[in-house]
């Protein structure tokens, strides 16, 4: 009896925390649907009075959102592809071989994860400009972001590879595979879920990337939605509902995708992709 009360208490606490955590998200949706005067009403209204869905189409058109979102997609897809391509091999080697150099590499990888983007941007900017990479700003952002996101991916995927017994690949070697064949035909298919899930997480991160894009992409036609949103907000902004509408259009697809894939993502991260 007291056990059920205990559970209920915990459930209540969970819901409360969830509500607090998700409140800003709700506020974004609510504000987007409010009229200009209602935004500044005091006390603030919790539920918008008149619902005005036309605002989304208007913001989409006036702010050229199609172009911004396209740029975000290009950068996110490119980054994800680069990270997955380079990171999978790296994670595999780090999972399968053990020696001092591997330990050093692992340490460096973890250290990279600690460095904030805002600190890294200056040396990256200088280096890229010297190499002429800034003439291809979106590609430059992809490269920089790949470097930033790689440790996260490598650590997740390495754990996946480590959960696959090395004997499976050894059996494949004896059965007639080359080393690379055993990796491609045995390890890779078994790690598929883990790689896929980690890649999706990278995509989501890259889709919201701001620091590198803001610094490296001057040409407005090449900027992603995150920078576009930032440009929308000036010191004298009053159009909060439009800004929130922009934000809504920007994050809702990602949010929806996450909710749809949530079960796979969680299980992929915890179960280690075997079975």
């Amino acid at each position: 009896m007291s056990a059920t009360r205990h559970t209920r208490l915990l459930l209540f606490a969970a819901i409360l925390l969830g509500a607090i955590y998700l409140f800003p998200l709700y506020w974004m949706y609510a504000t987007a649907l409010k009229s200009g005067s209602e935004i500044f009403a005091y006390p603030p209204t919790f539920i918008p009075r008149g619902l005005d869905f036309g605002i989304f189409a208007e913001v989409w058109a006036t702010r050229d959102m199609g172009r911004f979102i396209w740029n975000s997609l290009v950068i996110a897809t490119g980054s994800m592809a680069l990270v997955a391509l380079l990171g999978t091999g790296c994670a595999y080697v780090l999972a399968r071989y053990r020696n001092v150099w591997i330990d050093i590499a692992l340490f460096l990888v973890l250290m990279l994860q600690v460095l904030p983007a805002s600190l890294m941007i200056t040396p990256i900017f200088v280096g890229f400009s010297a190499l002429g990479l800034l003439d291809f700003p979106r590609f430059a952002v992809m490269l920089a972001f790949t470097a930033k996101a790689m440790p996260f991916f490598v650590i997740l995927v390495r754990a996946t590879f480590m959960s696959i017994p090395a004997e499976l690949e050894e059996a494949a070697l004896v059965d007639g595979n080359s080393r690379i064949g055993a990796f491609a035909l045995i390890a890779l298919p078994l790690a598929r879920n883990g790689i896929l899930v980690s890649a999706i997480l990278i995509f989501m991160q890259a889709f919201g990337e701001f620091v590198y894009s803001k610094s490296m992409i001057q040409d407005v036609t090449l900027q992603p939605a995150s920078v576009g949103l930032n440009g929308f907000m000036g010191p004298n902004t009053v159009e909060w509902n439009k800004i929130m509408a922009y934000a809504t259009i920007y994050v809702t697809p990602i949010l929806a995708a996450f909710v749809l894939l949530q079960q796979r993502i969680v299980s992929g991260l915890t179960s280690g992709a075997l079975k």
Partner: protein
Amino acid sequence: MTIQPQIELLSVNKHYGGFHALKDINVTIPKGSFVALVGPSGCGKSTLLRSLAGLESISGGEIRITGKAVNDTPPRHRDVAMVFQSYALYPHMSVRDNMSYSMRLRKASRAEIDAAVADVAAILGLGDYLDRKPNALSGGQRQRVAMGRAIIRNPKVFLFDEPLSNLDAALRVHMRKEIRALHDRIGATSVYVTHDQIEAMTMADHVVVLKSGVVEQQGAPLSLYDTPATKFVAGFIGSPAMNFVGGIVGDTGRAVTLDLPGAPSLPLARTMEPRRQVDVGLRPEHLSIETGGAPGIETTATSVESTGSVTYLYCGGDPEIVVVLSERERISQGDPVNLTIAPDKIHLFDPETGAALR
């Protein structure tokens, strides 16, 4: 007729960093024979087998398969098949695909694969499970799939790494016979790793006993039992294990006095160096209880266990002496007994080196 050696290991050495895992291993395996590698855990059995498969590179010496040195040959070109202790079945493939994996790798035709799979499935009784994934099989069935994956290859050499250790006792005894029968039927050469000396004794033509990376002794199973070369082999082969008692050879060299209460003296079948310290080995099944006045070990039974077919007698203490009797004897705890043994069944070992004294 000289039998062509299928596998030769010539002073094979293996180091893991500073650790010397295999020390100067020399073994010759004739074609068609069944060789067991036995030894306690960590003695290097798996390492030796993996070196044969090419999964581990050796640090010195030479491995030859059908006369050809394979030191630098990758596993896929050695034409060996291996059954792993964990079975190592590919979890994302059906039983059929697991077994035919090697054939698909060498681009065998569809018809050829189907025929081979059907063949092997019939031999192993796996016909009903071909479309299942490994995780939907019992331990015994998985073991068979692992065997099937090896058999389908029709390789020069089969390598088994403790393939039965995950099965229950009854199935283990059954599979033991089956693997041996399969070996005879296919006419393959097999190397079988086990830590179970009974498996080694019952299955193999030739047993190699390893201890800390060294070959202690090799030979036919019964020769290891009858004439163990070292105290280690004597204690390892045979169950229950041989009893060891310290002792000293008598003045005439024709008897040995044991380090036991009452200093019992046993006659020897051969003349030894007088007054020499020795370790005396007495197999439990060679000891018998004598009621007549024959010279033996006067002691008391501290505990008696009977399985119905045999009786285990534990006598004395420090060291305890185990006796196996096949007759049912009416002895109970605390009874005095006189243990005797035929002089030619007494094993003597050097206390320092452990080498057998003959």
